[in-house]
């Protein structure tokens, strides 16, 4: 290694030092600390008491809220991820057309993403009110059956997912960028060969954007696993445990309602369970991605 190369390395370390410092202070330390707390009984007020795997044992054996929280989280992921991908892709394909006003349509589709989340979710809550909400009022006027929406145990999670899909513009914008990077010659060749639109979609578009689909699957799944705002504002986990997703359960244990003592050690144990689930899901998705993603290996 030359003398210059050595000073380059030092300079490189110097440049990344602030980022690394930030990582260790704001990610590394909390990670280690939360793992330690997961092994303790800790309320944030008095010193932690080491309980080993006691919190995890309670989670998996006696906590009546934990398995429903896992089920609710799984249900949300299964319902939301495919729908957001399909809807996002469909919107992107529509916005990828050439027609008058396409820019306005793109702006409108993306607008919900830039609006304040809490405000829009609260508006949705009003609209989904079974008694005085806009949706039921419209259905009623049209002579159609109304729904309990957020207040029915069977309809609450689909309603939460409906509100989450309101922000599908974020997925759309990434798909739109991917669609615009597909070489137009491929489409022209397919048109010359007389390929049907379905054939073009499944044989050209989808394979060409499959790496972005993979990215979206991972991003949307991790986001869905960490969903908090919508269930917190819309239902606070109810009715019953039907929308009490893992993140909400963690929050309620760590930051309980007025008068209750926090269970920060127990909440930390839940955080680690969620962390392991997220890592496992990403690892599995990445492992099997080669089966359905297209990669250009030619030189």
């Amino acid at each position: 290694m030359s003398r210059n190369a050595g000073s380059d390395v030092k300079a490189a370390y110097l440049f990344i030092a602030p980022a690394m410092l930030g990582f260790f202070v704001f990610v590394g330390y909390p990670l280690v600390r939360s793992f330690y707390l997961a092994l303790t009984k800790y309320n944030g007020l008095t010193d932690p008491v080491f309980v080993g795997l006691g919190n995890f044992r309670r989670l998996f054996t006696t906590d009546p809220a934990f398995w429903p929280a896992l089920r609710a989280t799984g249900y949300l992921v299964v319902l939301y991820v495919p729908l957001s991908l399909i809807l996002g892709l469909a919107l992107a394909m529509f916005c990828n057309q050439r027609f008058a006003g396409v820019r306005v349509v793109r702006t409108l589709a993306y607008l919900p993403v830039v609006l304040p989340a809490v405000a829009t979710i609260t508006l949705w809550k009003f609209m989904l009110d079974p008694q005085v909400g806009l949706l039921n009022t419209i259905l009623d006027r049209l002579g159609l059956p109304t729904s309990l929406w957020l207040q029915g145990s069977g309809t609450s999670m689909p309603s939460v997912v409906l509100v989450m899909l309101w922000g599908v513009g974020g997925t759309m914008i990434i798909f739109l960028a991917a669609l615009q990077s597909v070489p137009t010659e491929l489409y022209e060749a397919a048109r010359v060969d007389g390929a049907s639109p379905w054939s073009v979609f499944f044989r050209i578009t989808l394979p060409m954007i499959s790496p972005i689909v993979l990215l979206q699957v991972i991003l949307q799944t991790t986001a869905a696993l960490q969903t908090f705002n919508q269930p917190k504002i819309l239902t606070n986990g109810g009715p019953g445990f039907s929308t009490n997703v893992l993140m909400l359960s963690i929050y309620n244990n760590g930051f309980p309602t007025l008068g209750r003592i926090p269970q920060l050690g127990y909440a930390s144990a839940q955080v680690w369970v969620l962390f392991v689930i997220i890592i496992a899901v990403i690892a599995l998705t990445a492992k099997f991605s080669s089966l359905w993603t297209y990669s250009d290996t030619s030189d």
Partner: protein
Amino acid sequence: MKRTLGVTALACAGLLAATACSGSDSGGGSSSGPVTVTVMTWESAETNAAIKKALADFKDDNITVQLLDTPSGQYGDKLASLTQAKKLPDLFWCGNDTEQQYTSQGLLVDWADKIKDGNGDFKSDNFVSSAMDNWKTADGQMGGLPSLMNTYGVWYNADAFTAAGLPLPKAGWTWDEMYADAAKLANKNGAKYGLVADQLTSGDGPFTMSMYAVSAGGAPFTDNVNHPTKAEADDKYKEGVEKLVAAIKNGSVAPPGYDASNVQSLFAAGKVPMTFGGQWLAAGFQTDKPKIKYGFAPFPQVQTPTTLYDSVGICTPQYTKDQDATFKVLEYLNTKVWDAVLPASPVAPPAYKPAQASYFDALTKAQQTTVADTVKADLAAEKTVGVRFTTQWAQQVGDLTTANYQPILSGKKPISDLPAYIDKINGLIKQGG
């Protein structure tokens, strides 16, 4: 360079030391110099303004009272962060469960001896006795004093009752009458349910159901909300649950999961004919006049009048700088401040009985006679039951209720599952102590 670093380090250490010393966790006691006593409430801006005005009349050369600004909506978060940072104000509004849990953690100053004999009239005998009993921990400590009583009853839309040809609810009416009225009022004039009783169907529902059992001569859900030794659901209790399940099933009563967050405005708009609620709604109705003629009745009964008891209060952290000065302000808050605040906003009757007159006068002046009568009846009720556990494991009981009790009310689980639910709670009681 080294010298600069050394000076900087020394300056930092000095700053840190100064910051640490300026904290308020220097232990209790009393000091001879001027003292500032800080107060934090969860009240609205209007009520806080009235409290501030009343506190301005507090005269003590050595004591300055400072009311802290707190957004009432985020009081819980504010309290949690102040607690964990050990920066709680000298006096802060707290619920009975907060007081019990914080006292058991050694976080609050113990006023038990100070209030036992008291200063002049300011002694425990002059407080509502059920509130004082409930504010004591198992070992007799009192981390705060009750300030206002919460009483509960049934708010009813008098217009809807009259239109349906039903007699207005009044003291002595029965649970059967209430459910029959709810059935007649359901699905009329934009009202889906005849009765919205969040207290019966939420996580606190099992405790509220105690009223039925106790009124019928049975046992309450638990023998003590602070230091329980058992939970039980005897035959009378089961009978009460059966009646509620039937009423939910036939659509008279809103089921568990009904969003009761805007029930007050729905009631005021005439879309909820009957709802369980606290007396504090009267203060809101006084300013935002509902479109309907309304009234407030005591809870129905089977035989003996039975009601819920609950009180909020004022707590003091164990590390308050001057306990004597803080207690003087606490006494002033309990004895004098309500006279200035309650006439404009009659939210609740004070737990300190000599201060109750201004509350009832305000209700009478505002022609809220049914509210005044019901609150008086509640305060004098022969039997009372607690609203929820104040124990540290109360959250776990809440989870068991969501998993077991609420599905019974919704008809998703049979009533025969009730004993299994009770067994699980008794397991927690045994475990949690």
